[in-house]
């Protein structure tokens, strides 16, 4: 049995009168790829935001590597190795792709010296390899803001990978990406998981992607956990079909 990396226990979060998440529990095992699906507005991104500390939860607890992270701040959680990408892609638009990657590289030691010294040249090979991995090597000197939306998504993915997280939360990684590139992205997600050893928790509407790569899926609807199980179970679960997938 693999070890539990992330454990969300009975988390609830309301915005005014809207219950975005109600009593949600989920578990992500180390080394797995877990999917999170549900209709628009079902609370998927709210749950992501709660996990990474973007806003405090009302009740419940979140544990990462057996450490209570419910009350930690965003950068503290990120430094534990829990990173997320954004649904509305966020990159540093007026910096080149290489600079975007350089600032995403983790520091070996958090001292004043390492912050103020010249950027280490030895990182460049790793950065170029990673940009090549996502297919942006030829764009590396361009400003990130000049890339297309799909390319910005790939850049954001590369930035997350080079930061070396243990768990990466991906918010709709294939949305807005050219369908022919999606296959490539699926392969890259698998490589990230198997070769770089990064556990993935993915929000995604593309069911083909989800069936293809996930080990386990959680389905949300109206802020509550509707169902969980293997991709096959979810695909055949009548409540999930009614609420989200539709008859087919």
């Amino acid at each position, binding site marked *: 049995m693999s070890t539990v990396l992330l454990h969300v226990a009975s988390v609830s979060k309301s915005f005014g009168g809207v219950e975005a998440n109600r009593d949600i529990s989920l578990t992500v095992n180390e080394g797995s790829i877990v999917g999170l699906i549900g209709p628009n507005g079902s609370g998927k991104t709210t749950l992501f935001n709660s996990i990474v500390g973007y806003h405090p939860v009302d009740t419940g607890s979140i544990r990462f590597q057996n450490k209570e992270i419910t009350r930690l701040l965003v950068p503290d959680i*990120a*430094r534990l190795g829990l990173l997320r990408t954004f649904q509305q892609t966020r990159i*540093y638009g*007026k*910096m080149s792709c290489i*600079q975007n990657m350089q600032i995403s590289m983790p520091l070996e030691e958090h001292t004043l010296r*390492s912050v103020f010294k010249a950027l280490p040249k030895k990182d460049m090979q790793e950065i170029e390899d990673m940009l090549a991995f996502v297919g942006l090597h030829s764009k590396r000197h361009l400003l990130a803001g000049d890339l297309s939306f799909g390319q910005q998504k790939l850049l954001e993915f590369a930035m997350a990978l080079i930061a070396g997280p243990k768990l990466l939360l991906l918010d709709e990684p294939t949305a807005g990406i050219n369908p022919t590139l999606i296959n490539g992205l699926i392969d890259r997600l698998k490589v990230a998981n198997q070769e770089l050893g990064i556990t993935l928790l993915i929000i995604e509407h593309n069911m083909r992607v989800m069936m293809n790569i996930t080990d386990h899926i959680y389905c949300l609807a109206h802020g509550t956990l509707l169902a969980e199980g293997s991709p096959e179970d979810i695909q055949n679960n009548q409540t999930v079909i009614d609420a989200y997938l539709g008859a087919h």
Partner: protein
Amino acid sequence: MKIYHYIILLLALAAPFLLPDYRTQLAFLWVMIILALSWDILGGQMGYNSFGNIIFFGIGMYTCAVFQRDAGLSYYPALLLGMGLGGIVAMLSAVILGNALLGMRGHYFSIGTLGLSIAAGELAGGWDFIGAGSGMTTPMFPGALGDRDIFFYFLFFAWTLVTFITLRWLYRSRFGLAINAIRDNEDKAEAMGIYTTRYKVVAWIISALFLGVIGGGAGNIIGFIDPKEVAFSGSTFGVWMILMAITGGKGTLWGPVIGATVFHITQELFWTLLLGWQRVALGLLIVLIVLFFPEGILGWLRQRYPQRFAANSIKPDQAS
């Protein structure tokens, strides 16, 4: 160092002897360059438009003058130590103000700093220890009048070099990338594990150091410190430092230097040639620059001739 570095250095060393009539203005050019460079740390590189940087200039000015008045040292050590102390006090102020104000973003930060600079002038004008509304007079220079201008010229030139070289190094470090990241997307920077508030406060402290030291010197070359017209003069130096950085090209290393030089020369020309209308001419110039060069002189050159003026970090084959 490249060839144009040597040319600029040579010109800077020769200028006070080539143009002996303009030594005071030339010395003041360095003050203007430092004002623009240190504003650009936050305003250009970090995307935080501060209208309050003038207070570090004023704090340095008063600290130095008080030290010169009360320390009982002879002229040169009192001046140099006073300028250093001005820098330190300005930095300490930046620690306190930074932690209080840099939690605010965008326009809120700008408005907060604007209030701060106005309040500082009012406070200084009501404090007897520093001369209140009647201001302070700095000590007389012990040597000849001609020597005085040469002395300040090279003193300010040295501090400008220190400022420029320090910033050049900072902008090539992780620190530089981090404040650029804060400018481009602060939420993303936080989500990637960057302690943004810490970087923001440190950036302001660095800015305050350069301003505080040169403030002490500027008080001495002006000779008289008025709380609202000189030290905390938001409507002159406070606005000029922003205009100079924008004119030259904010967010670049050379932009503020170019902007300050162009601004200072045109301003002096307007004073000489268009007396009575100099403010109008200056205003028109600003409008023209914003209309036709919104990215500043250097920004415009970069768009026009990307090969020749591209930022070092964007040039291929350089790992910045």
